[in-house]
């Protein structure tokens, strides 16, 4: 990302408007980050809204009823109506609340849910930061939520909230371990912590042949995928692990006392966290952006990249001291009319479609499970984590390590060499 911003600034912007191009790098980068962050927040909001609607609609059909179908066609505008309602609601704080913590908690939860999007790829090249320790980063920042929720449990001075917060702390901290180990299985097989690279090597025949989840790639990864999904359910406090907000026991758990926009933050954070877990599962196990027919759009070797196109389009010489060079702006915009520009775009778009579709399928399964199963008790949650998931995920890591060592089958090398 940084290189691309650098390129934009020095090779494109500088030719269109030299004074702008001469701005300090840091400022341009900051601007780029702000511009880049907007779609991410918007994406998160859209996902949360879409899934509040989706969840209720799916629940409706599962329960042989209609679900929300009044606001807009088939009720699709329902989340918007809910959002307006939540914004307009009075923001109430209990009398005995610890105000600073009370107000900070939803923000922290929200930020915790937002940060993993930085390393999360949306498509092959569409990733904010393709960091080397992506897996580690995502896991680490998802865990920030715990702090926010403990604060939310403590601050309102309500016993139910406290129970919810404590339950969540126990549950989430416990499930971080098997989740991490399951991802470690993939890391051991792939030999990298970079989410993009892990995903890149899962193409195979038809774009589906080499998904990590297939037993022929590694049976350990198959097992790890299911355990990761279960762990993900627990970490995002979804049924049957929704004890922190178990409404038949704890009224509403940690967000009992929250109303209005603060409640909306918790709500959005929950759905964003669900999406993150599903997207990570997709990237690590289900082949991420790979899918059938995507190869047809693959850019040929030596085909011009977007940078090349842009660089070529803004070649008009500029006079010294010129403020703005229209010819270069038109040149830059003319790129939009070229198939060479759109082909890689479509390639990425199809990848994003596959990734999001797979993630949405996993989200659907989450919702489906929620409306099927009763809730587990807290001791059983911990039992399941420590006595079932933990040993099996350790087994997976060991198995994957053994597979890598003894069969001399480092997927990364093997696949990369096979691709050549």
């Amino acid at each position, binding site marked *: 990302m940084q290189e691309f911003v650098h390129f934009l600034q020095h090779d494109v912007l500088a030719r269109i408007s030299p004074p702008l191009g001469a701005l300090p790098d840091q400022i341009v980068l900051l601007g780029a980050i702000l511009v880049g962050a907007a779609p991410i927040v918007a994406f998160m909001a859209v996902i949360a809204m879409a899934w509040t609607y989706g969840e209720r609609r*799916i629940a409706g*059909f*599962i329960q*042989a*009823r*209609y679900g929300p*179908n009044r606001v807009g066609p088939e009720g699709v505008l329902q989340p918007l109506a809910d959002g307006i309602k939540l914004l307009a609601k009075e923001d109430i704080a209990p009398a005995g609340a610890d105000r600073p913590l009370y107000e900070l908690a939803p923000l922290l939860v929200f930020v915790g849910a937002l940060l993993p999007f930085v390393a999360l790829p949306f498509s092959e090249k569409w990733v904010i930061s393709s960091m080397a320790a992506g897996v580690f980063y995502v896991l680490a920042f998802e865990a920030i939520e715990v702090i926010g929720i403990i604060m939310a449990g403590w601050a309102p001075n309500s016993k139910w909230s406290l129970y919810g917060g404590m339950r969540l702390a126990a549950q989430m901290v416990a499930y971080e371990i098997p989740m991490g180990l399951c991802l470690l299985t993939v890391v051991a097989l792939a030999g990298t912590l970079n989410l993009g690279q892990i995903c890149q090597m899962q193409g195979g025949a038809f774009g589906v042949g080499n998904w990590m989840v297939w037993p022929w790639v590694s049976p350990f990864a198959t097992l790890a995928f299911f355990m990761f999904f279960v762990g993900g359910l627990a970490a995002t406090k979804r049924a049957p692990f929704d004890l922190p907000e178990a409404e038949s026991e704890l009224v509403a758990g940690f967000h009992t006392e929250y109303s209005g926009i603060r409640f909306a933050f918790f709500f959005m954070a929950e759905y964003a966290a669900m999406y993150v877990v599903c997207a990570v599962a997709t990237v690590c196990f289900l082949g991420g952006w790979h899918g059938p027919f995507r190869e047809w759009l693959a850019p040929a070797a030596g085909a011009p990249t977007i940078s090349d196109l842009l660089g070529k389009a803004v070649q008009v010489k500029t006079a010294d001291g010129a403020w703005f060079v229209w010819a270069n702006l038109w040149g830059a915009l003319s790129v939009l009319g070229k198939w060479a520009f759109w082909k890689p775009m479509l390639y990425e778009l199809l990848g994003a479609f596959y990734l999001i579709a797979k993630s949405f399928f996993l989200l659907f399964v989450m919702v*489906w*499970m929620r409306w*099927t199963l009763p809730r587990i008790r807290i001791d059983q949650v911990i039992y399941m984590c420590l006595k079932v998931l933990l040993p099996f995920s350790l087994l997976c890591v060991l198995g994957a390590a053994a597979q890598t060592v003894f069969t001399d089958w480092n997927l990364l090398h093997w696949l990369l060499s096979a691709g050549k």
Partner: protein
Amino acid sequence: MAPKQNPVAQYFANIYQAVATTLLGMKLTIGYFFRKPVTMLYPEMRPVVQPGARGLHEFDEAKCIACKMCMTACPVDCLVIEFEGRGKDAFITRYDIDYQKCLFCQLCCDACPTEGIRMTGKWDLASYDRAGCLVRFARPKSTEEIRKFREDFARAEAEKKRKAAEAKAKAAAEAKPAAAPEPEKKSEG
């Protein structure tokens, strides 16, 4: 209780059962996901009210004989009748049911000898205030009307009384010679 198993087998059996029963349940719910919902879209589709449903009352003033049976039968005294005159020609000035109190037990309707009060399938009871819960079934009458009826009724009563007295006198006159032992029975009716 299930026979004691060896703990290792139990451990794996538990995992197997958890997965298997979860999948079975999910299979069942996804089946309903693709089926048509059984609920109805309320304001557009109204439920069919079965004949004989115990809903809002229907009052037929013409049939009412002001016998007050419904009032006595009511367990909660939600029914108030006021009337002038009596019997078939009674002039009902007030027939109120307070639906805040009503139990919808149908005892009033069962008690009614003329089916003047009946229950219908109407069930939409909502009103915006408490006053709306008090339903006045009798046609509202003006004081003028009531006074007129009162006068008419008094006249009719007097007429009746006079006739009855005449008949009595006549009967007495007829009975005297015959010395019949049934002097008063018929004159009442």
